[in-house]
Structures are given as structure tokens and as C-alpha cells.
């Protein structure tokens, strides 16, 4: 079974209180990361000191997916800010922790806390 059609977009970007909130769904892996990177690049065309990632719908993340997130982390770093993540499923949080990404991110339990903990 080979797919020749573009992968369904794994993410949508909302703008909440002036902050990009990237809602990621499904797998973020070697197969879906390229399409995600294209979407993320569009979001990163402008500078942002704060980007939030809604990971509630993420079912799987590999090193390829973490590299995609690292690009967003670098993006906010360049503006003197931080990337935050919220509603992270347990297995995804474990992957983030063992990869050494935890110190690079602000981790919130839910969207409201994440938005309250972020300033434009």
C-alpha cells in the first residue's frame, strides 16, 4: 500500500490572544513531519516570542517529529521567548523528557493555563 498523495495536514494554526496556537493531530513522525514543517514554516514567516503547541491529539512522536518541534523552539528563542506545550499525553511527555527537550519548553496542563502563562 503506497500513498502518492500529499499527507493530510497534521496541524492547524489558531491565533489566540495574539499567540499562534499550533494544534497537532495524529502522528508526528518521518511520514508526517515534512507536511508539518511546511505549515510551521508559514507560521514562522513572522517573528514570535511565544508559540503554543496543543499536543492533546498527538498519538505518536519520533525523533523526526521532535526535530520539527525543535525548529519552533529555535524560532521563539530567536525572539527572546519560549515555546510552550499543553495537554500532553503521557507517552508523548515521556518521549519529550527522554529526548532532553523538557528544559527547552514550558509545559502546561491545559490550554487555559498555557494562555494565562503566556504574555504577548
Amino acid at each position, binding site marked *: *500500500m*503506497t*500513498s502518492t498523495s500529499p499527507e493530510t495536514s497534521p496541524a492547524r494554526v489558531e491565533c489566540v490572544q495574539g499567540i499562534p496556537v499550533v494544534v497537532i493531530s495524529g502522528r508526528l*513522525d*518521518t*511520514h508526517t513531519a515534512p507536511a508539518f514543517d511546511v505549515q510551521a514554516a508559514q507560521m514562522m514567516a513572522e517573528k514570535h516570542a511565544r508559540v503554543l503547541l496543543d499536543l492533546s491529539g498527538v498519538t*505518536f512522536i*519520533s*525523533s*523526526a517529529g*521532535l*526535530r520539527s518541534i*525543535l525548529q519552533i*523552539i*529555535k524560532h521563539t*528563542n530567536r525572539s527572546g521567548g519560549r515555546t510552550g506545550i499543553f495537554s500532553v499525553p503521557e*507517552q508523548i511527555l*515521556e*518521549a519529550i523528557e*527522554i*529526548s*532532553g527537550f523538557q528544559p*527547552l519548553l514550558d509545559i502546561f496542563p491545559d490550554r487555559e493555563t498555557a494562555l494565562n502563562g503566556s504574555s504577548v
Partner: protein
Amino acid sequence: MGESLTIEVRNTQDAIAPATEEAERWLEAHEVSPRTIYLALLAIEELVTNCIHYGYDDTAEHTIRLEFGLADGALTMEVTDDGHEFDPVNAPEPDFSLELEDRPVGGLGIHMLRKLADEMTYERVDGKNRVRLVKRQGL
């Protein structure tokens, strides 16, 4: 009494998803825990991707063999390929002390497997790399 599954994967990026789907179906049918399934699917992606990118100098088709075994409350997974010699067990750890901009992207996938698996071993046998991962099911 044990159960086993063997999947042969071509060394192309689009061969990963079907292999992952087949493995996931088999693991779920055998009531393997979600944490163990996660490790198995991650191992397929990380080891096969590594092999595709670094394993070969030619453009020929190669086969990577995935063998899963369930016995005594543990999942054993063996990944065998005939690419360049590569020992992921002794591959250097990513340097987590590096400044963010300098942080290398290589090695992260292997590092994740090392941390998630209960055991990870490597041997070079008959010109092939064989990586063995073991994950014990919590009972």
C-alpha cells in the same frame, strides 16, 4: 509458548508506514501494552530510517528484516540489515549540554530507543547488523 511475526521491509521511506501498520495490528491483537507498542513502532521508524539514510552506498534494493517475538511476558524485536556496520548501542549520546543552536539532530532516535527499551543489544553477524530490543510487559 510464544508468538512471532516477521516483516520484510524494503529500504525505502514509503515502506515504513505499511510495516508499522502491520506490526501495530499484530501487537494490538496480542494485547501488548501501549507503552510496548510505542517502543516497537518507534524502533521500526528509527532503525529503518537510519538504515535507509546511512546504510548503503548503492541504489539497489535491500531488505530489512523485522522479527517480533512474544514470550515470558516480554516483547523481543530484532532488526537485521545488510548495510554498513553500525552499532547503535555504542553510538555516541547526543550532547545535551550543547547550546540550542549547536544541538545536533543525529543520534536522537537511537537515544530514545535506548531509554525506552529494557535491553538493547547489537551484533554483527554474517555481514549484517542485528539490533535486539527487549521490553518487558508490566504484569
